[in-house]
């Protein structure tokens, strides 16, 4: 049984359909990267898994049970945690307060203030700074730290690299082995294909709301990926 199983998922924004009959699965312990161009539906997929959006058809199974009736805030105690696109750091709270809000439900596990600070020195240095005053990279690191504070079983990361300097992206991706090493399964969404290929055990490429390519990085050629990515 997969940890997460998405079956025939349709998602709409009003009349506009963003995802068409999508299938996806993530096994415990593996790292799946979902890639795709702008507007492919990656963020929509993650928001639907996290419960911020409702599918119009299809189902999402987590630990074998349907998530459909579960509101977003009840998915966190089950172990699903999303670092949203745009980071969404609480602006008037300090970094440390942001982390504490992440731990609001007190789900037990290896992650706490201490271990987050160790994994993200960038965050530790800024612990007393207000969210509004953080740089993009600091926000991203703090947002991942905040998501980890709920000790997720499945961590959903949306566009970690967006708008960040390569060095910072590097630093943040360096923490992913620590995260998976602590027993968390990671589903990462990326536009930066190289980063995705580096961390992922398996890659799934979306185009306009549909899967166009899937497999372990080693089995896929660059040309195959490029063709799928751009739909050519």
């Amino acid at each position, binding site marked *: 049984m997969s940890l997460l199983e998405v079956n025939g998922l349709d998602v709409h924004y009003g009349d506009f359909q963003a995802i068409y009959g999508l299938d996806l699965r993530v096994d415990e312990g593996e790292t799946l990267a979902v890639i795709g161009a702008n507007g492919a539906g990656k963020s929509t997929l993650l928001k639907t898994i996290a419960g*911020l959006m409702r599918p119009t058809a299809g189902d999402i199974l987590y630990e074998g049970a349907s998530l459909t009736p579960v509101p977003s805030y009840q998915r966190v105690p089950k172990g699903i945690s999303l670092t949203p696109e745009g980071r969404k750091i*609480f602006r008037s709270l300090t970094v440390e307060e942001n982390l504490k809000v992440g731990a609001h439900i007190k789900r037990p596990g290896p992650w706490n203030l201490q271990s987050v600070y160790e994994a993200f020195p960038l965050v530790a240095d800024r612990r007393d700074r207000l969210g509004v005053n953080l740089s993009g990279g600091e926000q991203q690191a703090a947002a991942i730290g905040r998501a980890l504070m709920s000790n997720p079983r499945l961590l959903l990361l949306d566009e970690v690299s967006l708008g960040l300097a390569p060095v910072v992206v590097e630093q943040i991706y360096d923490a992913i082995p620590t995260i998976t090493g602590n027993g968390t399964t990671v589903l990462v969404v990326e536009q930066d294909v190289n980063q995705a290929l580096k961390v992922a055990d398996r890659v799934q490429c979306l185009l306009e709301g549909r899967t166009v390519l899937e497999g372990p990085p080693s089995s896929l050629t660059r040309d195959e990926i490029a063709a799928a990515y751009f739909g050519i």
Partner: protein
Amino acid sequence: MQWLNAIIQGILLGGLYALLAAGLSLMFGVMRIVNLAHGVLAMLAAYLGVVFVNNLGLPWFLALVIVVPIMAAVGYVLQWGLFNRAISKGGLAPLLVAFGLAVVLTQLLQQIFSADSRSIQIGALGTSSIQVSDTIYIGWFPLMTFVVGVLVIAGVQVFLNRAPLGRAMRATSDDPETVNLMGINNRQVYALATALAMATVGLAGMFIGTKTQFIPTYGDLVLIFAFEAVIIGGLGSLWGTLVGGIILGVAQTVGSQINPSYGLLVGNLVFLAILAFRPQGLLPKAVTT
């Protein structure tokens, strides 16, 4: 000496206004609702006080202990039943719903309790005072009101700064969708915030209903005083609200000292002057997001 007395009485009155304003400020701070029914809800608490103290003969302090949780429950139910729905509609809906509630509740109180003026009885405590000098007396009840006002402001501030739920309220205020990703139900946070706000309104209603002869439409004035205290002090700052309440209180008592019919007018004019010359208020919150 009369002037000094007016100022002292005004400061004490300011504590009451800060107490009135705390809930208005809290609801706005957490969910951006300006609760136009704030004043009449304070009147609801005051009428509950009349029922428990005057009609059922309970001791004043016992009535207080009963009215506050009742009001908190009223707040919780109102939020789930009315305001959360209105918020999900967005736009003007919360404001219009709050206004409708204010009108309906005022008329209901009028139906139930008539438009005769009432006051909660408190016995000797209502009239006893400390003599400070030949002409200056400080009433025990106004003093107690002031102390409670300051304590409530301080308590809410500490709660928001330190308590996990207070932190969750601030986070929800920043971004009500994202807190759901932290396992926090923003609607439940709203309901708890309104419950807390209404608990302070319960306190405020008991105190104002004891101090003043009131009728249901007195809630209009309560709303206006609370609002003026909030704006004079600066949005988002509870200590500012205390300062705003004191300035309003002093303006009113000094105005009444000039001419008994000037009290309200001078208070309003001071408010308008601050709006004109210092629209951010006296102690605005340092960080605005």
